[in-house]
């Protein structure tokens, strides 16, 4: 039986990797992948605690997160395609349309 701290440690490592990935990478696809990594780090923590406390609700949350992540990927990829059509690039440093 693997203790819950191990799962949690892995989850933290994954989340930090994802967060750092979001902050320092410029490729939109990579950023997207990093976000997925963070989401899955959270999923891992949910599942680990659900198992630990024998609570089914944690598992159900994971399903919801997966569904939302799938929808988000669909929208996000569509946005990236659209941006690539106009900018011929997916470098986020070149995309500053929100500048005040």
């Amino acid at each position: 039986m693997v203790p819950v701290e191990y799962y949690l440690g892995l989850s933290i490592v994954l989340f930090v990797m994802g967060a750092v990935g979001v902050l320092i990478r410029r490729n939109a696809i990579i950023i997207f992948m990093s976000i997925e990594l963070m989401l899955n780090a959270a999923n891992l923590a949910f599942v680990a605690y659900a198992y630990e406390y024998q609570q089914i609700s944690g598992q159900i949350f994971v399903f919801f997160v997966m569904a939302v992540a799938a929808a988000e990927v669909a929208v996000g990829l569509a946005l990236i395609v659209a941006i690539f059509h106009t900018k011929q690039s997916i470098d986020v440093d070149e995309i500053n349309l929100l500048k005040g």
Partner: protein
Amino acid sequence: MFLLEEAVSQGPQFFWLAPWIVAIPVIGLLFNILFGARLPEKVVGWVASLASGLAFVVAVLLAVSLASNHEGQVVTLAEWIHIGDFTVRWAFQVDTLSVTMMLLVSGVGTLIHIYSIGYMHEDVRHNGDPKRFRRFFVYLNLFIAAMMILVSSDNYLMLFVGWEGVGLCSYLLIGFWYEKGKDGIGNSLAAKKAMIANRVGDFGVLLALFIMFWGFGSLDFHTVFEKAPEVAGAAPWVIGAITLAFLLGVTGKSAQIPLYVWLPDAMAGPTPVSALIHAATMVTAGVYLVTRSAALYDLAPDVQTIVALVGAVTALFAATIAVGQFDIKKVLAYSTVSQLGFMVAAVGMGAYTAGMFHLIAHAFFKGLLFLASGSVILGVERGHHHVEHDAHLKKTIKGHGHDFDPQDMRNMGGMRHTMKVTFWVYLIGSLALAGIFPFAGFWSKDEILLDAYLHNQTVFILLLLAAFLTAFYMTRQVLLVFFGKPRSAAAEHAKESPPVMTVPLIILAILSVFGGVLNLPVFHTFGHWLEHTLEGLEAQEFSLLVAATATLASLLAILLGWWLYSRRYNQQQELPVAKRPDDPLRQILGPVFTALNNKWWVDELYQLIIIRPYAWLSNFLAEQVDWRFWHDWFHEKVIANGYTGLSYFLADKFDMRVIDGAANGLATVTQQFAGGLRRLQTGYVRNYALSIFLGLVLIMAYLFFR
């Protein structure tokens, strides 16, 4: 209840008619205001006379009612003022005193109305404005109405309304020919003088009413007289102050020293006005006021003495001035002042019967004399007119200019041949005024002298001298006007007046002869009549000594007058014009006559000590205080400049700098702040992500280390 019914059933009752005594003249004047312009003169005049005549009928009916119900009645018409406990009503007090005045005012008033139809018919033409005929009668009816309010009221406030009303009519009628007179303004000035002199008196009456309200809490005759002894015991000065303040009103309205100066000037009005207002009725309002307030005056003996002395001194003083006048109406005016002095002296001594009796007798013979003098003046005017328009006569008469004065007695003479009726009635009026037996004036004046003899010797001597002078100046006037040779062509061609004027004269002459029967000694009819209203009247026994002294003085004066103005005057007429004195008295009295002729320079004295300082003060207040201090300095410099300066400061300094600065500053700060914040919005997703991340870390750290 039974008693009341019994009282009602006694004799005829017409008390409910009392309000009509005022209403009828008002209806008359309204009729003339509304329809008079389109009606002929005759109708206007007769409507006005009818209104006055009906008022007389009402007065007679009231008198008949009083004959069986002596106590009289108060007829309330409406409530006027009601504040807390204080109530003033429009109520008509019908008692023997008020009805006496009503009879007098409406009776003499009616005769004068009728006379005016004839007089004004010519007067408006001589003065060149026939349109004023109607106005005259409207004023005359208004006067009757106001006078009726004055005499019939049951409280002092309503009396004051009438008091002011008659003052207004007096003003309007003195200034009737407002564009005439000296420098085209003389009559207006005379009217103004009357108004102002009366205002001073009215101030006294108002003051008395204020004190009365303060002291008694009521202005009703009944309440005030009932409370008077009580108030006199608690605060005697209240009664003294009220009666003294009333005396000031009396000196104004009844032309006593020191406010008498307006009455001689009031002769600027048409002659019927002089007769009605300034001889017979209005000027006696002061005497009526004192008589009505008898209950108050009886409680203030010191004030009574003052009143008596004021009256007596006025009687003598005015009589001396009358001796030196040449204007036929001025003589009568000063005579009126003098006779009013007699009445005031009488009521001042508590001889109310004598005062009221003389008031009535005087109304008859002085009304008569004024109306007759009007007839004389018009006669001379007619003669003047006749001469002017007769080419033949005009050539033969030299020195006949347009500045001819038809009122100057030096232009008259010998008119007993040309104006027979006027002469006879004038003679009767003069004898009555001089106090010759058995005319009305003899009885009334004798009663006053008798009271004076018994009460106050100083007053008696003053009045006796005045009576002597009265007989003298009337003799002088009759001789100058009617005897001797005509001294001008106008007098020579004078014509008698029409019957509409002479008939009232004859009626008044009859009244002047037989007026004495009202209150003959022994019978004291009038005294008993007034006793129902006034308490504590004493009827004096006839004294042969006093009567003989007075008659002797009058006869002596007539003899002296005849010697001077018939013998000497006619002798002097033979002298050449340059050496001929205008009056035989001037030779004898010298500068004294000049003083009399100039009315003792009282007008000039008032001019010097009152009007000039007053004008100077007004001028000072207007020029220096009002204009230069208030307007130039205070308003212009302090207020206007201060306000401009303050506005400039507020607009330029405060509004522009502070308010606008604050608003603009806020905008600038916001803009700069926003400009700073703007830099944060880089548009780079990573920056946003970083800030979200950092924020998350901060929140986590907070939750963790909390």
